[in-house]
């Protein structure tokens, strides 16, 4: 698929990342254009801490509203959402977020697979998922589900990722439509 031809009616964008992904997001945030017609939902592995500073960190890089998700918050367009530490993030067909404190998946909570799979159920072929740098294979099964529903799967170019394993595994498992460098991601999102 050509990078500048995106034939998808995007209703939700989910970005999953682990080790080395926060820097990529800090880099792309200043270039995001406000007013996008879908939510951007970030599921990032990090240390558990009750008061996560990620939303503050991200808010400093953009004027777009960055929100920490609470259970049953409505999913709104034009907003950047951050999955809380220590919960899995699911999306209900009624347009609200649900949290789930059950067992870790891929040693992770939040698990990227869990959110990708849940979102694929709801948004089907109108979902775009981006998998960034990371040291485990979380997200790969999720991308498989996204693809099976005809959604779009994007990964960070492994040679460009701080920790290439996660995008590499996705490519190896043939679950990828588009491969982007870190400095191409903002422009990609702006075209959706």
């Amino acid at each position, binding site marked *: 698929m050509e990078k500048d031809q995106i034939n998808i009616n995007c209703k939700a964008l989910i970005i999953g990342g682990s080790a080395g992904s926060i820097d990529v997001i800090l880099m792309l945030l200043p270039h995001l254009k406000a007013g996008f017609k879908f939510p951007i939902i970030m599921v990032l592995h990090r240390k558990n801490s*009750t*008061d996560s500073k990620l939303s503050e960190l991200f808010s400093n890089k953009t004027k777009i509203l960055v929100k920490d*998700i*609470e*259970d*049953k918050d409505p999913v709104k367009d034009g907003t950047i959402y951050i999955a*809380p530490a220590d*919960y899995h993030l*699911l*999306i*209900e*067909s*009624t347009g*609200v977020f*649900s*949290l*789930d*404190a*059950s*067992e870790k998946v891929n040693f992770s909570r939040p698990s990227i697979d*869990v959110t990708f*799979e*849940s979102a694929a*159920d*709801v948004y089907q072929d109108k979902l775009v998922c981006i998998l960034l740098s990371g040291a485990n294979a979380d997200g790969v099964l999720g991308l498989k589900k996204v693809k099976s529903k005809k959604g779009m799967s994007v990964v960070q170019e492994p040679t460009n990722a701080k920790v290439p394993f996660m995008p590499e595994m996705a490519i190896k498992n043939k679950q990828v439509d588009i491969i982007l460098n870190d400095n191409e991601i903002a422009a990609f999102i702006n075209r959706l």
Partner: protein
Amino acid sequence: MINDHDIELLLNDIVELYGYDFTFYSKASLKRRLNRLFEIDKFPSFAEFHYRIKSDKDYLQRFIEEITVNVTEMFRDPGFYKILRTEILPAMGTNPYIKIWHAGCSTGEEVFSMAILLKELNLLHKSLIYATDINPTVLEKFTKGIFPLSNMKQYSENYIASGGVKDFSSYYTANYHTALFDPALIQKTVHSTHNLVSDGSFNEFNLILCRNVLIYFDSQLQDRVFNLFDESLAKLGYLCLGSKESLKFSVINLKYKQHAKEKIWRKIK
């Protein structure tokens, strides 16, 4: 994979046959739990899964255990326990007695945490704790007070972060891979099955804790449970929720005042 139609069919049968109503659970989460169990127990088809649940009462018990989430820990979110220790519980010290309800207590790690707090504040002797859960098996585990020794490092760290100054290991006896907690901590605790979906109010409390239970319910069921808590809470009593749960969308919100930015609400009307 179990699809949405299968789930509806299954849930309706479970209500009819056994009286457990999961139809107002959060759909996305429930679907995940069902598919997880379906895979773990290696059913070849939905029909066989469905039949087993309908025909085998013992398997239903396993179903309840696996579908409901029983992940919990002692002094989970230490900052929350610090507020209980330094602000909420001492303010109740002047009451002749303190009645506490742990709703959806699972295996009781949070109940033991509470008992330890009360003991250290010299309030345990005049406290009455009710511990309830939908699932009798987890309550049985709770009353034994035996937890994996491997968890104690984390719990001890949580305890210290919550303002505890004692040696956490003084509360349990280690034996091979287990930690047996001092039975005196829960001597006066009443435990019982209670289903938040269908059972009513049974007492009046000064403090209700229901943390990371409501996330598994849809908004409609959450409102039912909030009303139940409201009926069960004395005026000026406190309701404590999980770190990402809130009263903000609820029907009872206007009667409650949030304690600073904590997940603690006081009933003011």
